[in-house]
């Protein structure tokens, strides 16, 4: 079963703080395989989109400099019960989408 993005989202005083953890190798494309000497192909998340309901609240653009198994936290003005969706797409076209309710 594929590893899924984990989301924690809490609202306080009209501000929702979102913390998320994504499972991804985030290879820069610069590393070499220690055994074969060949470069490990670049494989990293390029875009992360966060939506509250239908409204986009944040877009992140990333290069390979984000750490493996990326962590992302941001805030937006919102409410308890918001349907928060976090989607990402990587340079190889793979993607993931997870939804959670704001607590």
């Amino acid at each position, binding site marked *: 079963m594929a590893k899924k993005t984990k989301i924690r989202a809490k609202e306080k005083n009209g501000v929702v703080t979102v913390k998320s953890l994504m499972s991804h190798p985030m290879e820069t494309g*610069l590393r070499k395989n220690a055994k074969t000497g060949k470069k490990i192909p670049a494989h990293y998340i*390029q875009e992360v989109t966060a939506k509250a309901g239908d409204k986009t609240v944040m*877009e992140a*653009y990333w290069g390979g400099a984000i*750490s493996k198994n*990326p962590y*992302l936290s941001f805030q*937006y003005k919102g409410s308890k019960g918001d349907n928060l969706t976090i989607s990402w797409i990587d340079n190889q076209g793979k993607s993931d989408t997870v939804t959670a309710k704001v607590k």
Partner: protein
Amino acid sequence: MKRRTLLKTSLAASLLASTGMLIPGRVMAAYPKTAFQNADATAALTEVFGSSDYAESGDIKIKAPEIAENGAVVPIQVTSSMSDIESISIILSNNPTPFAASFNLHGSIGFVSTRFKMAGTSDVLAIVKAGGKLHATKQEVKVTIGGCGG
């Protein structure tokens, strides 16, 4: 910190830069692919924002370790209480491709936090686009060499 003024050769860009105004309104519409591949931080900024001219701001706070235990995972947080924040970008000056991340903040709350790979000791430059202009602050993070083979 010096005001940095590296201009692209186009006349339009130099006019905009000299009036301190950037093209207003639009947040970054699309993934700035070439900026992420650029070895030159200033050139990358110009690609993304049309200019690399920014004003030092005391209203941007970088929370990052003074000494990064391991350059593979460096937690960096940027906050700002400026109004009309469109985006926050992070540049790691000693990385092979310094333009590291950019966040479009539609909800307008100036807060982002993530974990970065840093190739070596360098300044972390946090750039906030607010009110159509670029504002920035920087902070050094030391990346150390461990004694046990890292």
